[in-house]
């Protein structure tokens, strides 16, 4: 079934490079110019994403996960957002210098996104099938009935029971989990190469979360998509991601393969996070917290942004910004990364 659409779909003009790299974000900066000053939401973020790979972006609220995703998608509100520097290359082409029209055409067939709040991301005034079909009408110029047929096919694919009967129902007639499935159906409609999922299960129950994550994994396997999974849930990351980047105050402070991240964290923040989560499989656990709060992004502390909360901070941390550098198999932006890794 899927193969039919893939073959009938227009051949993409974009080809990943030799080692399958789809997306490359290079030293991205994003600022918000507000009344209270300039909030430096993203301060030099770099990562890349390959075909068939799941990259998790982890971090507390306000660390810049969603802004990163929106910048890649090209849906940041500008103004107030400003991108003073950086590049986002998709299959070698810089999205930031691309004409808006060309970029718009890529949203859907090349890169697409799922949001946290499925209820507010679906339009309450149109049937869900119409909204899924919109993708085909817009990008492929399909007629109404073909688009509806495609919608039914996709709804079946994301396991919505009685898809044929429900295709003309409205978003409020579906449960939270089903709405998220519909969002996923819309996001994968045009077979994107990159899928960004911004906290796709945060608003859902664990049972539904398990279903949705399983569905995402299955779809990714099937289509060899590059998946960027944005979440604050260390459990979900451990379950599905290949690599993870940990964000703090608009920077990536640690980047590692998934096993290293949990078994041998090389940044105090990552270690602190791991200590602060209660685990289902442990009893008698001493819970410890990092304490304090992430900084206000209009006044990021000098040196390492984490220093006011870091229990290992030394004088150098208050003056020098630690670069994201190689430490063993992973990357860490800490002056004392080796100590953290080995101690």
């Amino acid at each position: 079934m899927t193969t039919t659409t893939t073959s009938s779909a227009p051949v993409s003009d974009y080809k990943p490079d030799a080692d399958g790299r789809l997306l490359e974000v290079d030293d991205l900066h994003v600022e918000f110019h507000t009344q209270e000053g300039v909030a430096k939401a993203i301060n030099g973020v770099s990562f890349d994403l390959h075909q068939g790979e799941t990259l998790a972006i982890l971090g507390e609220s306000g660390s810049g996960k969603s802004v990163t995703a929106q910048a890649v998608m090209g849906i940041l509100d500008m103004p107030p957002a400003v991108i003073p520097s950086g590049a986002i290359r998709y299959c070698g082409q810089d999205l930031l210098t691309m004409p808006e029209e060309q970029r718009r055409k890529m949203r859907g067939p090349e890169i697409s996104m799922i949001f946290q709040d499925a209820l507010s991301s679906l339009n309450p005034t149109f049937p869900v099938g119409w909204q899924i079909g919109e993708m085909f009408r817009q990008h492929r110029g399909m007629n109404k009935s073909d688009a509806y047929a495609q919608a039914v096919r996709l709804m079946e694919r994301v396991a919505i029971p009685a898809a044929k009967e429900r295709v003309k129902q409205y978003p409020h007639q579906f449960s939270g989990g089903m709405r998220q499935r519909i969002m996923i159906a819309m996001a994968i409609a045009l077979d994107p190469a990159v899928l960004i999922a911004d906290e796709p299960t945060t608003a859902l129950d664990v049972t539904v979360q398990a279903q949705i994550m399983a569905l995402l994994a299955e779809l990714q396997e099937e289509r060899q998509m590059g998946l960027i999974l944005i979440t604050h849930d260390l459990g979900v990351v451990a379950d599905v991601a290949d690599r993870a980047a940990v964000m703090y105050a608009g920077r990536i402070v640690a980047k590692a393969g998934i096993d290293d991240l949990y078994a041998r964290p090389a940044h105090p923040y990552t270690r602190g996070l791991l200590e602060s989560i209660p685990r289902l499989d442990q009893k008698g656990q001493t819970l410890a917290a990092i304490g304090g709060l992430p900084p206000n992004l209009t006044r990021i502390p000098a040196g390492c942004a984490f220093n006011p909360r870091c229990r290992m901070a030394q004088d150098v941390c208050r003056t020098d910004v630690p670069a994201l550098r190689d430490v063993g198999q992973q990357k860490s932006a800490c002056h004392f990364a080796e100590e953290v890794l080995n101690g």
Partner: protein
Amino acid sequence: MTDTIAATVAPGAAGDDVGEARSLTQDAWRSLKKNKMFWISVALIGVFVLMAIWPSLFTSKDPGFGDINNVRATPSAEHWFGTDTQGYDIYARTIYGARASIIVGILASLTTLLLGGVLGVLAGFYGGWLDALLSRITDIFYAIPLILGGILFMASFPNGANSNYFVVVGKVVLVLTVFGWPTIARLMRSSVLQVKPNEYVLAARALGASPWRIIRSHILPNALAPAIVVATINLGVFIVVEATLSFLGIGLTPPAISWGVAISDALNAIRTYPHILLFPSLFLSLAVLAFILLGDAVRDAFDPKSR
């Protein structure tokens, strides 16, 4: 890069504006202070209120003295705005006319706010049959246009030949209240419904707080802002309605002085002596404008999204 960050975050600078406590009201006040329109409207309203309280401050002329030998005079040094068909000084009469408009506007706004507010709070807070009843009554009154209601009421209970000034003003205020409260009540009910499910209200109930205490200290402070804004804007509307009723001869009638009466009188000579109409109309428009501007400014200030 590093340098700029270091420069903007000098140690100690971090907590500067944190110590300052700001509530929503204070935030609103801060943004009002910066709003030019707010100050213009406040200045205008100040002048009108002063006129209403103390007209002799603005003119030494007697508005009740008609100089038969000098009717329909054009503006001059003696009569700044000229004189009207009966030789009254238009400037003095315009100044003295402010009183009726301002009293009617302010009183009617207060009474609608009070009546509409109380009924809206009761309906929103208690819900159930009380809400159903009050809402239906509100709808009925809401369906009658203010002007129409005013005309019907004033025409059915005409003023006696020598009705006391304050009795007539009172009647106008009464009719404006009777037909003006539903706007406030509906608004108040919906903002109470918005505030009520907040967990701080539940928390107060969990503590055993009385309904009155919950309304007074949790519901009202959080639900009042929109009603105040609309009441301010309504003030302008009420002034217009008062003028209209007087214009139609069923509100204030001579010898009482009001802008509506003046406008009505002026119509007889509108073609030949338009200035007689011009000045009271100008003042009326300015007063209405001032209150609407104030209402707008206050609304913007209370709306966090406009900031």
